[in-house]
């Protein structure tokens, strides 16, 4: 029988189920564990943390979760790929090594650190050299928000992770890389797929896309026949069993909850998709219209036939910048006339804000329970047991936003009756961090890899 590489996903975003990584290494045989922590704007949060504390700037959950995973790494040879490094991969690796010193056989740990994605220190140099870093949708040059930029990171591909694995790393910590590279790199390393074998590379990308969001491919957030999906409290995270030809089976450990079927995997395939013919990554362009998918027994789905094409010579850059402030406040109005009372409260708040001479870029009101999420597409029943008034403001004047946060609670004694649910206190003022997607030439990004031990 031909060789199979098993890659398990243990984290679909920073804040995902803490138990999942340990369950993935203990629940059955796997070769690799991939952990994805980085959403579009996570880097800016981490950048802010590092400004306050130079030792921070990475996903701290990773260190906690690795305590449960390390025995499998040093004793059983499971290897880990994780983008937990955030804006400080070296700091993340140091924290991991520090924690590992208390674990038996820690001398077997080899941590590969991938850096070079962080463009924050290089922005001016890049702009001076003619790289506009224009907004991918609006076309505006980055110089228009330059002084407000918080973080800038290139999405690096599989190359440097493969290099770390080839140099013997059993845990690879990266900063910003594509989520799918965390899966593609182990496959290219294990099978020695040529870097221009577009179809097999594309298959690796599809495998990555299916498992990178964790349990969303094993029954979590699954719309298809959701009420019959068993044992979600015990949900198994996804595993791909990949063959040398790139075809693979999506499954999960025996005895875990959830469900792996064609319907759920298809839902995950179309999640966050753009043009399905061009799923662009730094390593290959995958054509999702070529994917073949078939049931392969209980909790097993086979995926094959994927085609790919050469990538572009650009890398995507994820930039975050400060864009004013916001706050959201809520109150709950109960029957009778819940919605009418909530609407009257909204009118009063807006009038008081106007009388104070405060202006905002936006005041946004929703009535939760009376179609906050579907808007005019939904119809509202005549009698509602309660409605949550949810009112938010956004603008550049922090003082105005602060003042707004003082205008919610007074409604309890100065507005319509039947109001409650204000125990949470004043809303918090948050800085708005906006997202600026851009492209940069591959040849200006120079990832580097180092290997650290205890």
């Amino acid at each position, binding site marked *: 029988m031909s060789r199979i590489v098993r890659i398990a996903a243990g984290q679909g975003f920073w804040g995902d189920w803490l138990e999942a990584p340990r369950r993935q290494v203990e629940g059955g045989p796997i070769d690799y564990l991939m952990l994805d922590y980085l959403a579009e704007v996570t880097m800016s949060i981490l950048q802010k943390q590092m400004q306050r504390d130079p030792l921070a700037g990475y996903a701290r959950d990773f260190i906690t979760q690795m305590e449960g995973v390390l025995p499998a790494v040093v004793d059983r040879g499971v290897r880990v790929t994780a983008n937990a490094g955030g804006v400080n991969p070296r700091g993340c690796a140091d924290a991991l090594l520090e924690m590992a010193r208390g674990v038996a056989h820690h001398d077997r740990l080899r941590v590969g650190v991938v850096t070079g994605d962080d463009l924050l220190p290089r922005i001016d140099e890049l702009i001076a050299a003619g790289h506009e870093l224009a907004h991918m949708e609006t076309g505006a040059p980055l110089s228009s928000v330059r002084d407000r930029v918080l973080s800038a990171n290139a999405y690096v591909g599989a190359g440097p992770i493969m290099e770390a694995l080839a140099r013997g790393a059993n845990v690879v910590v990266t900063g910003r890389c594509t989520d799918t590279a965390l899966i593609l790199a182990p496959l290219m390393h294990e099978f020695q797929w040529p870097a221009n074998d577009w179809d097999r590379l594309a298959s690796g990308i599809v495998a990555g896309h299916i498992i990178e969001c964790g349990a969303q491919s094993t029954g979590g957030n699954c719309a298809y026949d959701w009420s019959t999906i068993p044992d979600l409290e015990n949900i198994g995270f996804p595993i791909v069993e990949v063959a040398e030809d790139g075809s693979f089976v999506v499954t999960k450990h025996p005895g875990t909850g959830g469900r792996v079927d064609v319907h759920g995997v*298809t839902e995950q395939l*179309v999640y966050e998709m753009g043009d399905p013919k061009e799923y662009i990554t730094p390593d290959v362009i995958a054509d999702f219209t070529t994917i073949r998918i078939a049931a392969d027994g209980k909790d097993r789905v086979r995926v094959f036939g994927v085609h790919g094409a050469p990538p572009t010579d650009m890398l995507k850059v994820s930039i975050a910048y400060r864009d004013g402030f916001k706050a959201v406040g809520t109150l709950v109005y109960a029957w009778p006339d819940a919605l009418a009372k909530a609407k009257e409260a909204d009118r009063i708040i807006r009038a008081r804000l106007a009388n104070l001479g405060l202006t905002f870029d936006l005041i946004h009101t929703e009535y939760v329970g009376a179609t906050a999420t*579907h808007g005019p597409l939904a119809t509202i029943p005549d009698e509602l047991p309660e409605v949550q008034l949810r009112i938010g403001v956004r603008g550049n004047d922090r003082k105005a936003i602060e003042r707004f946060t003082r205008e919610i609670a007074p409604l309890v004694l100065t507005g319509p009756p039947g109001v409650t649910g204000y125990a949470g206190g004043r809303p918090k003022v948050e800085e708005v961090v906006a997202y600026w997607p851009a492209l940069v030439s591959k040849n200006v990004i120079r990832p580097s890899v180092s290997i650290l031990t205890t």
Partner: protein
Amino acid sequence: MKIRLLDIAHARSGDKGDTANVGLIALRDEWYPILVRYVTRERVAEHFSKVIKGSVERFELPNLLALNFLLHGALGGGGTVTLRTDAQAKVYSTAMLRLVIDVPDAEARAAGLPEYRT
């Protein structure tokens, strides 16, 4: 005959910047051509006309019995900027499933489509 998408398809949605994507998947093989024919770009744009600010794009994935829609200007500026409850377009999927299409009776019966009665 009136057919509601909830009864013939399932869906998942997500965000990219200020754009929502909705993947719409036929519940049965024989219903995919119905989706292709009647859930047009124009029909979806009309459905969401009071909800989104931008245009609609549609892509076909016959291999997955799926259509992918991009709804531009759908998130009040994008995930971190927006004041909306559904900041990341997670429930645009179910908003899509509210769409009711008109299918000629003979064609609807031949495909075994469940009629939607209000």
